[in-house]
């Protein structure tokens, strides 16, 4: 049985329908990359899975249980954690406090303050700095660490490389590789197709709220994904 199953999900922002009848499954230990242009509905889909956005139709099953109506704070305890777009740290609090506040309300498990700091050594000396004063890379590490503190079984990452220096992106992806080796199940949103194909076991491409291409990362070529990304085929079909 798959760890996560999304069935015919519809989500709206007012009149705008951001996600249209999306279905997908994620197996335990898998890394699924969601790619697509801005406004394709990736972030809304991720937020709906985390419980931060209430869908208008469809179901979300986690570990076989229907969690569609479970609020975000309770869904976290079933084992779904989201690293939101733009990191959204508690900027008035220290790095340590950001990590501890998540640890106190999440599940107990292998991830503690010590193990998170082992995974992100750059946070060690910034522990008592205000989260608002960190560099982008340090902030992203804190945001991922904060999600790990809740010991999730499914980690959702929304554009972890956004606004980071290339060297910081490298560091973040190195730590993701380490998470994958540890058997983590990850769904990530990534704009960079090359990076998505590199890190993921499966890739799903979204366009205007729908998944229009999905498959094994090894079987998909960069060209196929690029085509789907911009909706080129459809545009050609419409033109002819």
């Amino acid at each position, binding site marked *: 049985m798959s760890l996560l199953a999304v069935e015919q999900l519809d989500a709206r922002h007012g009149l705008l329908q951001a996600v249209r009848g999306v279905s997908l499954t994620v197996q335990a230990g898998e890394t699924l990359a969601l790619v697509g242009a801005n406004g394709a509905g990736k972030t809304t889909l991720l937020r709906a899975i*985390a*419980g*931060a956005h209430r869908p208008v139709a469809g179901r979300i099953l986690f570990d076989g249980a229907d969690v569609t109506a479970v*609020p*975000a*704070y*309770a869904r*976290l*305890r079933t084992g779904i*954690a*989201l690293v*939101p777009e733009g990191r*959204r740290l*508690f*900027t*008035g*609090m220290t790095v340590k*406090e950001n990590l*501890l*506040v*998540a640890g*106190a*309300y*999440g599940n107990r498990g292998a991830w503690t303050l010590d193990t998170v700091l082992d995974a992100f050594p750059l946070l060690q000396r910034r522990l008592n700095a205000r989260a608002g004063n960190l560099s982008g890379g340090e902030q992203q590490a804190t945001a991922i660490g*904060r*999600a790990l*503190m*809740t010991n999730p079984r499914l980690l959702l990452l929304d554009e972890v490389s956004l606004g980071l220096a290339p060297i910081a992106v490298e560091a973040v992806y190195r730590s993701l590789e380490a998470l994958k080796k540890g058997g983590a199940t990850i769904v990530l949103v990534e704009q960079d197709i090359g990076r998505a194909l590199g890190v993921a076991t499966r890739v799903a491409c979204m366009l205007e709220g729908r998944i229009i291409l999905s498959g094994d990362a090894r079987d998909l070529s960069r060209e196929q994904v690029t085509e789907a990304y911009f909706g080129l085929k459809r545009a050609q079909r419409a033109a002819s």
Partner: protein
Amino acid sequence: MIWVSQLINGVLLGGYYALLACGLSFMFGVMRIINLAHGDLAILSACLVFVIADATGLSPFVALVAVLPVMALIGFGLQRFMLERSLRAGMLVPLLTTFGLAIVVENGLFEYFGADSRSLAPYIGDFAFDSWALGDNIYIGSLALLIFAVAVVLLGGLKLFLSHTSLGRAIRATAEDPDTAELVGINARHVYAVAAAIAVASAGLAGVFLAMRETFMPYSGPTQLIFAFEAVVIGGIGSLSGTLVGGIVLGVAQTFGAQINPQGFLIAGHVVFLVVLAGRLAVGAVQARGGLLRVFPRRPISPP
């Protein structure tokens, strides 16, 4: 010498204002709600203690221990059933809601207690007017000192609670970003209700001390609200240590004003409040225009 005495009295009076302002500041800091019923809830608590002390002969301090959990419960329910709903309708609606609540509380108390002035002072015996003499002409009231000590302990304790307990950190996280707080497992609704419970209980504590210090009646709430507001604005909104400083500045201004002229008590407090407010606005306006040098350039930017 009289000025030293008045300074001490002013500082101690400031402790009461800080205690009163604590909940108002806290509620605004966490939920962005300005609770216009804050003063009336303080008076409600004083009335409850008065009823218990009057009916049973218990010391008001004992009655206070019974009333504080009731006030906390009122705060919890208020948030859960009234303010939470009004918050969904925007910033202005909670303000109107608490304004309405203030009227309901005032008139409810008037219905039951009438317009008589009451005081808890007769119920605490000598403690109401006991004092220590420090040298010539300097006296420290024991009740005033107690109130000041409670204010320092409450504000300090709240500060420690917010930075060193997981519930405290959850309150700060929720205050900053309730949506993200939910994403790390915090039930923001519950946290808000707990914060409201703390705020209303602290208002209740201040109300009972007011009733021990002086007289009160059902319509005393709005005056106390104004003092609390002034202390919060002078000290800086949302800062707990600032609230203590703001209370003390207000208290000292009032006692000094009263020393200059018996009518000067309120006026001096209001003037200091207005000066601080105008100063903050001016500093804010200058910063918004890019600093003092931009507003008042040393040389004209373009020669005439």
